[in-house]
């Protein structure tokens, strides 16, 4: 419970919103889908800034780029035809792994990437997609590459008066790709133990494009660009798929948790990753 919560701010536009956050000096926070905020136990938060009426719920395709407003819910991503068609439905596959329908109706894209939990599903997907995170704050607007945004906890990247407004993805890079996003968990709606995001493009059996990101295994999502690059142009067969999977798990940072040991997670990740690479 937020014991010292006193105020709820509804403002007309983003510049007023930023002023409210600036005045709050970290004691007023943006309200996304509320699925984390409502469970927080803190004495420090005194105000909530409502983001739902600021025009940040949308999925747009301008031909070159896909733009996702930060207040778009996970269910709205799932309902979007743009998302369904893009990159072999990659973001739809990722969105389907988030909690339950009831959770997905509330959780927002902005909240899912700001509140970077170990299990957050969208961050590994956005890493594979080279997404750009757009924010606005008292010093103006800026764009942060996913790679940088997820290199630390986002609260260390953003200032307290900054709001995530949009996630932008270049479409061109992902024409004709195949993709998969697998969550390994105890039940279908449980938090993932392992998340695996793969984008692959083949031409005459040879790898033309390969992107691999892992989530849930360590506090920050991980992408493996150096290993991906090694295999561009190579013919894909079972041996190569096994080799890629082996290299990835040997390089990945894996932390133990109560549900599974490091060794178990390594073995399962390797096998699922190999299967994905061979089957898509």
């Amino acid at each position, binding site marked *: 419970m937020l014991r010292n919560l006193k105020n709820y701010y509804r403002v007309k536009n983003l510049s007023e919103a930023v002023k409210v956050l600036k005045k709050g000096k970290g004691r007023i926070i943006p309200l996304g889908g509320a699925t984390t905020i409502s469970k927080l136990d803190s004495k420090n938060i005194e105000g909530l800034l409502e983001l739902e009426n600021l025009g940040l719920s949308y999925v747009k395709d301008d031909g070159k780029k896909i733009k996702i407003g930060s207040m778009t819910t996970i269910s709205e991503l799932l309902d979007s035809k743009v998302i369904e068609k893009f990159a072999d439905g990659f973001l739809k596959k990722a969105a389907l792994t988030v909690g*339950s329908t009831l959770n997905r109706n509330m959780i927002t894209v902005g909240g899912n990437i700001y509140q970077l939990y170990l299990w957050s599903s969208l961050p590994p997907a956005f890493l594979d997609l080279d997404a750009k995170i757009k924010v606005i704050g008292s010093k103006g607007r800026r764009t942060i590459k996913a790679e940088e945004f997820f290199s630390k906890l986002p609260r260390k990247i953003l200032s307290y008066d900054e709001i995530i407004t949009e996630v932008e993805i270049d479409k061109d890079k992902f024409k004709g790709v195949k993709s998969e996003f697998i969550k390994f968990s105890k039940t279908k709606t449980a938090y993932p133990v392992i998340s695996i995001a793969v984008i692959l493009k083949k031409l005459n059996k040879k790898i033309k494009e390969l992107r691999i990101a892992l989530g849930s295994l360590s506090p920050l999502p991980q992408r493996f660009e150096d290993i991906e690059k090694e295999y561009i142009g190579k013919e894909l067969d079972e041996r190569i798929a096994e080799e890629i999977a082996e290299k990835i798990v040997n390089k990945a940072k894996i932390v133990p948790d109560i549900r599974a040991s490091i060794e178990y997670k390594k073995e399962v990740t390797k096998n699922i990753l190999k299967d994905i690479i061979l089957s898509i």
Partner: protein
Amino acid sequence: MKIKVLINKEEKEFEVRVNDVLLDVLRRNGYYGVKCGCREGECGACTVLVDGKPVTSCLYPAVRAEGKSITTIEGIENDKIGSVLQEVFLEEGAVQCGFCTPGMILSSKALLEKNKNPSEEDIKLALDGNLCRCTGYVKIINAVKKASKKLRERREK
């Protein structure tokens, strides 16, 4: 502070604190059909519809409900889809202790509003956040299938 809502098609004003979740405000005001199971967003017993969408009221900030339309199980009786769901849940034996039933019926209503002929997969997805410790789900899924059939037959008549 006060919030105005349209609840079960009736305009009402509720006194709320900024850190109240909708679940507590509704129960304080006599909507006991909204159950509290986990307060974690995990069980779905607290499901209500906000502007037609099923959400966990245990995580939904009450202040955010200002100006919105809320449906609880108490508002289902005179609803076309809701009343059919109530009938078929009884006919199919989809209710045992009944704790999950308000949430199950509200999530099913939201599904049938959107999808007139859902597949078994669609039903399972729509109800994946509503846990039932008694029935084993089979009868619940059958009840939703039967409701969608009944509603389609009624529309065709």
